[in-house]
Each structure stands twice: as structure tokens, then as C-alpha cells.
């Protein structure tokens, strides 16, 4: 009887993990994120040790503990250290297996002693072996050996009370180890195939050509075209993309753009290495709305935004997902420290005001740092390439949660599979309103300010972020009662430069939790089922050969045994009695097959449980049991 952990809450716990570096491809062109089991954000006392973790998977407690013990610093004296090492070993794979084996052997001797009187004389020599097997079969319960004495029955009860959870623990451990190795092998095999495919197709450079400083004309960055085979589907979306929404204040006077980093040629429009330029359309918001968005982003992610005082909310906690509406509705906005021009008296002077200089703030390290950038952009012709005052954040390379800046780098695998026309994210109405979607061509824009929010937030925070973006889209859509002529919002993935349907933000981009803690891919269910079925087939053939049963009978026996039903009508070696050497070899073979089969079952449970839970959730959503 194997319990499957209540993965729903575990998944929720995992969603809150910080996201670390992306890893390489596993399944065709999809990029996955590897979630760190241990992270700065992780509070092991609350979410990770989910209340619904089953007894069987309590062994998963041992893994992090193991890592902590191995990699952490050891406090205490040498004796304590030694004790810790002993306990570590005891709970490792090897220790558990050895413990289970020792328990079995001890039980064998114990039951032999207890039941000796009841065995008929000619069974005497092999009682020991038979008792050993009875213990091994304790979980299945064959029944052809069972205790007769009162003491034997009572001892059986207590032996089972201790032994069954122990066995489950051991099985789960072994199942975890085997599952990870299975996944590893699957990934190797799969990547060999997909690497061959990828070499043929992928030609878009992931790295952008770096412009040498001083060149007048910037080279248009090559657009990122996704490999044509890629089809994003809902289940593959791991996290929301970094969202960049441009708030464009349409009628601003062109300002002389100050560079955020010392440029080689201040007047040139060239810039340092840039990713594919996101396609910005024009979204006109008034100052108040824009400031509110900035304030809310900042408030949510605890980014100190100069010029704004955000009242600290007591409910904010990194690990919690709070609703958008719970943010404080009013923000105190003050004048910025420096202003170039006279402030506009009609609107409060905020970072998004005309006169505020472009700025950039980064969130604290632990948040996985959202990076709010207010940039100047200036008029450009369609033929020009995208230029952007380089932000130092753009040059960093990894989506590293504990690094403060964002992860926009073309050299690393994209965090987000870009949308394809045929994929899940069709270009919606926004596409029609923003005429140019051809990468590389920029619509002519009047200068203004751009609010770009990059984030590397983890799961729920990303969801919130996308809700924020969604609000922006809603406001843009004329929800405030007035139609905006130039109201277009295109949310773009700043990495790929492809547009992303604003309607889908916050809804479809559901941060689906990644796989189990130390695996990067999910093995599809049919493969696991095929593996289990083949194991049954192998067992059937084995027992046909060993025992002389028919193939049907052998298969029936394997199934009944591995499902732990264990009728006992077919038992290997039974027909020959217990006294011959041959019979004992057969009994041992049968027991080994059983034990390995239980491990295989545990492994398959481990491999498919997340997929099964996801499918069940989808099913429950479909039938209306669960609401979104």
C-alpha cells in the first residue's frame, strides 16, 4: 500500500522556491528551470514540509537534511559531529537498506524460534529460510506460512507495525534514487536526439553581436526565431516571462537622453550588447496611473523607489502571495531630489514625470530582485535598430534568484519559450493595433519614458506581477470608460522580443511548479507504464522458465505479487516443498524479484505522480470540481 503524497500543496510550496539557473534542454526545445530545493527564500518550517507529505515520502525529509549536514557547517564538538555522521549514514540510502535487511534477518531468527514447535518434522531444516521469506512477504502476505502460536501472532503484529513504515521509507528512498537516475538516463537519451535536431534547425544566434563602441550605426540584432518544432503548451509553461510594459508618454518633448552607463559615444545611438529589442507599442497613461503602477510594483517587491514613500505593509512576506487589491491604495509621492526642469505643477512630480531623470532601482537581493528601470527613449526611425540606454542589468547573465538583477541575457537559454504564431499565445487584438510586429522594425515613436519592469521573482510573485501587468492592459483597453486612440499595449518578452498576449498574462501564464526537486524533466507517463509492463513481462518469462507455469499463470503471479495483493496460490518453489536446494534457490529468486519489483513500483510512482496530479487537476477543473 503506497501513499502518494498530496502533491497539490507540495507544488504550492515548490512554487515559492526561488528560481535559479536555467538548465539545458531536455525535451526538444523547451527550457526548464531548475528549482532549488534549498534556497534563501525557503522556509523549511512552513511550506516545504508540507502538511500533506505522506508517511512514505517523509524520507524526502532526509534529503535536505542530508545536504545540510554534508554541506553546512557542523556545530558542536567532535562527538556530536560523529553522531551526526552516524545518523546521516543511517538515513542515507545505504543505511536504510542495510537496516531493513538487518530487520528482516532478525525477524527470521525470531519467528523461527517462535514457530519451531509447530513445524512438522520434515520441514525442519528449511524453517529458517522459510521464515526469512515470510518476512519478506510480509507486505504481500502470501499466507502459506503464517504463525500458529499465540506469541507468534502477537509478535507478527508488532513486527508489522514497525516493519511496514520502515519498508515504505526504504522503498521511497530507493524509488527516489532510481527515479532520478531514470530521469537522467531519459534526459541523456532524449537530448542526444533533440541535440541532433536542434543543430539542424536552430540558427538564430543566442548571443547578439556586440557593437563596437563608437560605431555610428547600430546593427540590427538578429531576431530570435524559435525552432519551428516548438509548440508551447500549457503544461510546459513554467514561469511567467519577465514582463516589460512600456508606458509611453506620448507628447513629451524630446529630451537629451542621458546614458545610464558611460557610453563611448554619447551622441550615437549605438549601444552596448543588447538583446533583441522588445517591440514596444504605445501605451498612454496619465501620470497618476503610471505612478501608481510603479508604486505598486515597488511596494510589492519591496523595491525602494526614490521619490516614493511606500508605507510598509505588515502583511508583506516574501513567501506569501497576496492579492493585488491588498496593496495600499494611496501612495505618498514626493518630489524627486533633482529635477532638471521646472516641475509641472499640474501633476505630482514622480519618477515618471517629464522632468525626472531616468533611473533604475533594484530590489533587495532576497527578493530575487525586481529591476525597475525607467529609461529614456528617443525618436528613432524604423530602419534604425533598437537602442536603449544600456542598463547594467542587461549585461548580467543569469536568471539567478539571489542575484539582484534581472536575467536578460541572450547567452543563456531563454527563460521563456517565445510565442509562435501557431502556438498557444496568439497575437490578439493588440497585434492588429500595433502594426509592426516584424522583428527588427520599430514603429516610429515620439520620445518619452519607458517603464520596464524586469523580474526574476518566483512563482507566486510572478503571478502577481503578471496581474499587475494585466491591470495595465485593462486600463489600456479603455476600461476607464474612454477609448484611447493610441491605446495599445504590447507586453513583450524582453529577451526574445516577441509579443505576448496581454490577456493571457496572469491567466495562462500560470507558474506551473517545476518537477521534483532534483530532476529537470518529466518522463511521460506512457514510457513509465511501458517500463512497468516490460518488467512484468520479464518476470512472467522468468517464472515460466523457472517454475514451469504457463505464461498466463506467470504473468498473473507477477501482477498479483507486485501489486502487493499476494493471494498465495502461486508461490515460487511451493510445489517442490522447502527441503530441496533447488526450491530454495527458486524461493530466493522470487523474493529478489519481488523486492526489486517493489522498488520499480516506487520509482514509477515517483516519476508519474506530478503528471498524474496535474492531469487530475485539469480534469477537476474541467468537470467543475475546482475553480481556477
Amino acid at each position, binding site marked *: 500500500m503506497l501513499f502518494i503524497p498530496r502533491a497539490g500543496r507540495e507544488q504550492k510550496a515548490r512554487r515559492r522556491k526561488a528560481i535559479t539557473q536555467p538548465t539545458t534542454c531536455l525535451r526538444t526545445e523547451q527550457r526548464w528551470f531548475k528549482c532549488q530545493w534549498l534556497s534563501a527564500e525557503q522556509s523549511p518550517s512552513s511550506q516545504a514540509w508540507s502538511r500533506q507529505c505522506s508517511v512514505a515520502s517523509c524520507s524526502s525529509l532526509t534529503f535536505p537534511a542530508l545536504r545540510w549536514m554534508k554541506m553546512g557547517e557542523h556545530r558542536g564538538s567532535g562527538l556530536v559531529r560523529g553522531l551526526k555522521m552516524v545518523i546521516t549514514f543511517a538515513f542515507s540510502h545505504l543505511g536504510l537498506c542495510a537496516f531493513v535487511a538487518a530487520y528482516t534477518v532478525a525477524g527470521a531468527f525470531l519467528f523461527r524460534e517462535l514457530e519451531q514447535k509447530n513445524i512438522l518434522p520434515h520441514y525442519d531444516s528449511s524453517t529458517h529460510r522459510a521464515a526469512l521469506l515470510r518476512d519478506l512477504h510480509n507486505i504481500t502476505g502470501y499466507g502459506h506460512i503464517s504463525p500458529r502460536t499465540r506469541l507468534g501472532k502477537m509478535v507478527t503484529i508488532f513486527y508489522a507495525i514497525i516493519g511496514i513504515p520502515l519498508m515504505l521509507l526504504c522503498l521511497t528512498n530507493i524509488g527516489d534514487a532510481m527515479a532520478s537516475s531514470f530521469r537522467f538516463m531519459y534526459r541523456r537519451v532524449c537530448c542526444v536526439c533533440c541535440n541532433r535536431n536542434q543543430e539542424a534547425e536552430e540558427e538564430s544566434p543566442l548571443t547578439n553581436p556586440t557593437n563596437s563602441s563608437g560605431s555610428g550605426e547600430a546593427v540590427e540584432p538578429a531576431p530570435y526565431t524559435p525552432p519551428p518544432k516548438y509548440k508551447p503548451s500549457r503544461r510546459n509553461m513554467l514561469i511567467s516571462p519577465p514582463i516589460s510594459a512600456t508606458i509611453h508618454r506620448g507628447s513629451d518633448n524630446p529630451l537629451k537622453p542621458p546614458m545610464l552607463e558611460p557610453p563611448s559615444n554619447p551622441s550615437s545611438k549605438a549601444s552596448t550588447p543588447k538583446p533583441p529589442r522588445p517591440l514596444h507599442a504605445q501605451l498612454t497613461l496619465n501620470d497618476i496611473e503610471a505612478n501608481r503602477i510603479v508604486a505598486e510594483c515597488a511596494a510589492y517587491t519591496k523595491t525602494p523607489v526614490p521619490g516614493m514613500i511606500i508605507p510598509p505593509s505588515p502583511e508583506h512576506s516574501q513567501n506569501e502571495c497576496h492579492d493585488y487589491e491588498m496593496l495600499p491604495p494611496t501612495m505618498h509621492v514626493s518630489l524627486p531630489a533633482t529635477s532638471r526642469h521646472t516641475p509641472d505643477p499640474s501633476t505630482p512630480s514622480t519618477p515618471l514625470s517629464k522632468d525626472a531623470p531616468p533611473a533604475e532601482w533594484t530590489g533587495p537581493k532576497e527578493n530575487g530582485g525586481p529591476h525597475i528601470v525607467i529609461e529614456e527613449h528617443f525618436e528613432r526611425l524604423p530602419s534604425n535598430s533598437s537602442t536603449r540606454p544600456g542598463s547594467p542589468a542587461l549585461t548580467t547573465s543569469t536568471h539567478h534568484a539571489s542575484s539582484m538583477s534581472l536575467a536578460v541575457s541572450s547567452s543563456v537559454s531563454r527563460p521563456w519559450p517565445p510565442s509562435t504564431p501557431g502556438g498557444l499565445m496568439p497575437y490578439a487584438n493588440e497585434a492588429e493595433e500595433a502594426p509592426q510586429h516584424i522583428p527588427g522594425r520599430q514603429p516610429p515613436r515620439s520620445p518619452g519614458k519607458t517603464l520596464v519592469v524586469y523580474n526574476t521573482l518566483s512563482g507566486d510573485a510572478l503571478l502577481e506581477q503578471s496581474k499587475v501587468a494585466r491591470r495595465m492592459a485593462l486600463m489600456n483597453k479603455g476600461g476607464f470608460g474612454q477609448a484611447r486612440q493610441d491605446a495599445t499595449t504590447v507586453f513583450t518578452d524582453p529577451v526574445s522580443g516577441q509579443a505576448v498576449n496581454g490577456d493571457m498574462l496572469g491567466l495562462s501564464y500560470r507558474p506551473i511548479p517545476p518537477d521534483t526537486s532534483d530532476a529537470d524533466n518529466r518522463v511521460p507517463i506512457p514510457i513509465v507504464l511501458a517500463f512497468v509492463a516490460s518488467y512484468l513481462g520479464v518476470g512472467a518469462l522468468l517464472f515460466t522458465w523457472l517454475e514451469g507455469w504457463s505464461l498466463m499463470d506467470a504473468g498473473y503471479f507477477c501482477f498479483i505479487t507486485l501489486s502487493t495483493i499476494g493471494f*498465495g496460490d502461486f508461490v515460487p518453489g511451493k510445489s517442490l516443498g522447502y527441503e530441496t536446494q533447488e526450491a530454495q534457490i527458486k524461493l530466493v529468486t522470487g523474493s529478489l524479484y519481488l523486492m526489486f519489483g517493489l522498488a520499480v513500483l516506487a520509482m514509477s510512482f515517483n516519476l508519474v505522480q506530478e503528471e498524474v496530479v496535474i492531469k487530475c487537476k485539469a480534469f477537476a477543473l474541467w468537470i467543475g*470540481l475546482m475553480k481556477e
Partner: protein
Amino acid sequence: MQTAYARMVYDRYQRNQRADGGRARRRATLAHLLKDACRRLIAFLFTQVGVCGLVVAYNIMGAFAFRAIEGDYGDAAPEEAALLLREDAVKRLWNITARLNILEQTQWRQEVTRALEDFQGDVVPLVKAKGYRGVLPSQAWSFSAALMYSLSVYTTIGYGNLTPRTEWGKIATILYAIVGMPLMLLYMSNVGEVLAHIFKFIYFRACSCDAGSMGYYRSGSGNLRPIPVTARRVEEPKEGGKKGQGLRRTVPITYCLMVIAIYVACGGAIFSQWERWSLLDACYFSYISLSTIGFGDLVPGRTVAGKNEDEEVESQQIIVTVYLLVGSALVAMCFNLMQEETIENLKTFWRRLGCLRKNSHSGNEEGPSVTGG
């Protein structure tokens, strides 16, 4: 105010979306109605009540199926072989008796002993290898016996006193198990969760602990209502949160074990009365069944024809089936309750060993291998 406005906008947006769907639905065809009805039915089936009903229905269906496959069309070859053996033995005994003109005890006994030993030697392999039961399949596979058999399949107890002999029976068993075991797991998890909630409710009410600690609050009318999920805050359990120090958030393991022990004892008391087993034997049977080991050495009801043919055997077996189903749910409940306690104890244990780094609310102490990647 702006937030409220945004919310209004969002609601309107959502209502627009839904309105579009409603307009389409008014033009719904019969197919849509049927699909909707099916969906509602399936949704009901997967609620707690539905799952219970589903399991019971599955059990009954299996009983009928196996009774037909194995009972009516069953394989009676071992019984026929046993019949032949018996007749041969009787003939042999008669020959012995007829041969000895003077009935002298010692010689007669010797010869008869040898004859009976041979008979025994022939019958025992028949029992062990061929599964000879002593009754014809149509008698052995009564409805209640098939009910117990189906139960033993999908709960993975697997008594083994009744096993399929025909090929179709074996295939049917495999398929029945493949479908039944996930169903059983679903049943156990669903009903176990509900029972765990009820038990926690009763426990916290009875011991007048802080009900808020487990997610309940007192509403205006004084009833205990669960705190809605969105408003719940995950709280850090206090260090060494035993009784009297911190808030008790989990039911102690001893109570869970007590519940199981009481249930096993009750079952033992009842079965010892019926089957005339000793109390220990009956408790042993209950325990072995509930833990799904299911040796099969002691099984209520008689599949082998005995001297006392009770009419109540059938009802007894049905009651045992119900007992085992309810018992499985209780076991699931206890597992559910014990997990939390076990995890908290383990956490405390690890923390005391200094292996865990304490993560407080405010700070973010990095775990040792945070950036290990």
C-alpha cells in the same frame, strides 16, 4: 479608490467574458445539455459521498462478475480429481477389508494406515498446487464470498482462500485490480481527509484548545467555522510546541493509534463471537486485514464445507466487508493525522541536532547550499 476602480473594471471585464459565454449557451443544443449533465454527474461522483458510493458499487459489481466467471463457469477439476481419489481410496479400503477374512486389528490398521497415507499424499498436493477447496465452485463462490474476494483484490489484502482458477478469472482479477486500486486510494484519501477534519474538530473542541490554531474561528452565532483559505496565514509552530507551551496544532499520535486499536478490538470481539475464534485470533485477523497484509489463514465464513452450515455466514461476510471498508478509511485518517505530528517531531529533532538552520520570518539566512545550483 483607484484600486476599487480597477477592481470594478476587472469585474466588468470578467462579466463581459462570461456574458459572451452565456449568449452562446442559450443556443445550447441537446448535446451541450447532456455534456453538462455528464459533467455534473462526474463531479458528484468525485465528492466524498460519490466516492463512497462508487467504491461500494464497484465492489458489488465485482462480486457479481466473479461469481459468474468463477462460480457458475468455474473450473471444478480439482474437485473432480479429489472425488476420484476418494473413490479409489474407498475401493482400496474395501479390498483390504474383504481380503482379511478374520478382522484382526493390527494388520487391518496397518494396511488401512498405509492406504490412508497414500490418499493423504495425493490429496495434499491437490490442495496445495491445484487449490482444492472441498466444495464445488458454485457453492464456494457465493455472493458474499465473492464480495470478500473483490474487496481483497482492490484493497490489496489478498486473502487467498478463494482464488481464480480459470484464465478469464485471472485476467478479470488483473483488470479489476488495475482499476480498483487507484479508486481505493482515492477513496482512502478523500474519506480519510474528511474523517481527519472531523476528528480534529472533535478533539480541539473536546480539549478546549484554541480552535483558531487549526483554522477555525467562531462566527457570530457561536459556531465554529473554518477560516477561508485566502485569509489563512501560515504560522510558524513554536519551538517545542507541546501542550501548555505553544498552540497545539496537531492531534497527538497516541490518540490516532488509540482509535485504530479500539477499532481492531471491536472487530475482534465481534468476530470471535461469530467464528468461535479466540479473542487474540480475531484481533489478529482484524489487524492483518486492516494493514492489508492478509495472510488468509483466518478468514470469516467457510469456503470449505464444514459440519455446521450456518445461514448467517453470508450476512457475516457482508458485515466483515463493510467493517474492512470503514476500517481502511479510519486507517487513512490516522495516517493523515500522524503525518503532521511525525513531521513536526522530525523537524524538532533535526533542529535540536543543529542540522537545520532556523529560518525566521524576517531574516533570510541562506542555507548552506543555496547558491550551489
